[in-house]
């Protein structure tokens, strides 16, 4: 099953189980079913709760917040995550704040879905991974779709938090299979919501990567194993923030991989937490691997030069461990 099918099935399941759940977004209704077809079939089954909206990212996010205030659950699809910038005020200053700024907790069950990432030649305003800009908003949790976690569980967890959540979905991940790792690596769950891809032997380093770059990280892990006999353990957290991540005992080297362009990345926050908790155990600072500090160009040769890929990950890990 491909990721997009898993996500679509999860939405069908949730819409069916929760009669108070709405889904809103641009062009989400059938037969179109959303720009990336994630919402296919939903409006046909739940016509009164799946609504195509005008091109109004700000307002539809506010509508979701209003539904949440009234006791409903709501999912907003932002066609391209780049445009969630238009909903930044509703998310930061209203939805997230409402959870606590009225003195008593206000449950706000809403999820803003953001397809993100490049690699498809969509250009500078349709290819970004803006996760980092949403870190540290009180009352706002961040998740990223992973090939290693059923999205029904992810969505259920987000709504159970009773606070607004943003779900980032790497566009290139949609067509990838779920739960597939290349031999000899094995997949298991390190802790609730954190997938682990590893070998039996003690790893030389730990690689932390959200779902969107997991395949790139795994490709690097395979080539590092074959060409350099470097053993990596990959951890893929479903929740990016607040981050609940335990390093395997004995970890001495950590790499954080993400597609975000350079500067103030999610990895810097992860590194900070790891440095505080494991300073003495580490052989060196956590190494961040991300895309260049640049807009994301359209032309394939320029785009691939900017975006993080398996070869970059391979090189950085090799150079860091082998000097």
């Amino acid at each position, binding site marked *: 099953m491909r990721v997009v099918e898993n996500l679509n099935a999860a939405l069908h399941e949730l819409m069916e189980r929760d009669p108070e759940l*709405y889904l809103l977004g641009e062009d989400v209704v059938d037969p179109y079913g959303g720009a990336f077809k994630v919402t296919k079939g939903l409006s046909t089954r739940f016509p*009164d709760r799946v*609504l195509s*909206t*005008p091109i*109004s990212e*700000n*307002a*539809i*996010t*506010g*509508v*979701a*917040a*209003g*539904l*949440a*205030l*009234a*006791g*409903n659950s*709501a999912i907003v699809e932002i066609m391209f995550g780049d445009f969630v910038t238009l909903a930044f*005020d*509703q998310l930061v*200053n*209203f939805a997230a*704040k*409402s959870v*606590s*700024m*009225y*003195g*008593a907790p*206000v449950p706000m069950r809403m999820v803003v879905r953001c397809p993100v990432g490049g690699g498809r030649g969509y250009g500078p305003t349709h290819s970004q991974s803006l996760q980092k800009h949403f870190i540290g908003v009180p009352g706002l949790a961040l998740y990223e779709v992973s090939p290693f976690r059923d999205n029904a569980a992810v969505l259920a967890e987000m709504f159970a938090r009773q606070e607004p959540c943003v779900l980032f979905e790497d566009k290139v991940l949609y067509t990838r299979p779920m739960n597939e790792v290349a031999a000899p690596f094995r997949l298991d769950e390190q802790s609730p919501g954190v997938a682990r891809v590893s070998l039996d032997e003690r790893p030389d380093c730990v690689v932390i990567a959200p779902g969107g770059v997991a395949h790139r990280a795994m490709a690097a892990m395979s080539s590092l194993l074959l060409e350099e006999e470097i053993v990596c353990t990959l951890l893929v957290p479903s929740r990016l923030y607040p981050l609940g991540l335990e390093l395997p005992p004995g970890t001495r080297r950590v790499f954080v991989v993400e597609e975000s362009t350079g500067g103030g990345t999610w990895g810097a926050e992860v590194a900070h937490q790891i440095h505080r908790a494991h300073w003495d155990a580490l052989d060196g600072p956590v190494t961040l691997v991300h895309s260049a500090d640049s807009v994301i160009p359209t032309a394939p040769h320029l785009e691939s030069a900017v975006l993080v890929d398996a070869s970059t990950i391979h090189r950085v890990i090799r150079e860091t461990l082998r000097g």
Partner: protein
Amino acid sequence: MMVTTEAAAAVRPPGDEDLSLLLTIRAFEEKLLDLFGRGMLNGTTHTCLGQEYVPVAMEGLLEARDHVFSNHRGHGHYLARHRDPEGLLAEIMGRRGAVCAGVGGSQHIRRERYLSTGVQGESLPVACGVALHLRRTEPGALACVYIGDGTFGEGGVYEALNLAALWRLPLLVVVENNGIAQSTPIARSMAGSIAGRAAAFGVEHRRIESMEVDEIRAQLADAVRAVREGAPLVAEFVTPRLGPHSKGDDTRPAEEIARLRAVDWYARYAEAEPERFQRLDREARAAVDAVAEDVVAREPS
């Protein structure tokens, strides 16, 4: 400001309950400015002096099941809805009994189906969401949003009006058009008219120039009933802001403020029915004084 002194002609103050509520809001706001003057309040506040009759009139048209969204200038909206000067003052002063535990303060208040926040324009899309909920689960109930004329600068207002009209949401937008936004006169902030802004989205519009509670209710009753059936409405009140935007930041010429004071319901009602007015005014001020004395003496929230 199109309020004309002719309005003063045939003055009939509202019944005791409405008049008392008007006077309570007036007393409350003046008490706040007094407390500020004496350095007993911190932060900021935006009084609704002169505009008290708007929420008082609206409350007569609203039902308990309706939702009310308010803004920075929301004390009157809250008092008209919940008759709770104590909880509000405690909130503003951060004392025990604060309706939002002192976290929200003057601009961020929530109680049951009443909610205010301090960022202009945010509340309209949110109210659309609540209205969408109501349309399906509590048909007949509506979401009422108070905004000012200056808030029509925000794009979110139009995104919301469009949704309300497209989806036939029970949304009632009450515009308190006091002709000014902080220091900016409406002529410098709004091209066209509020009526035109509503018409652009096929949303009904009523312009209310009266300051008389009963008259206003009569003028709006049908349109508000229609809102409950899914015909969104923009009710524009032409109303005077007698006080500063927040505290001591009024840059309008004295003559203009004098002109506004001349149409103030307070003076007109005092003159029209001195005896009843004085009695209710004394009662209202005494009650607010008592609340203030009590709240001021309380420990922090």
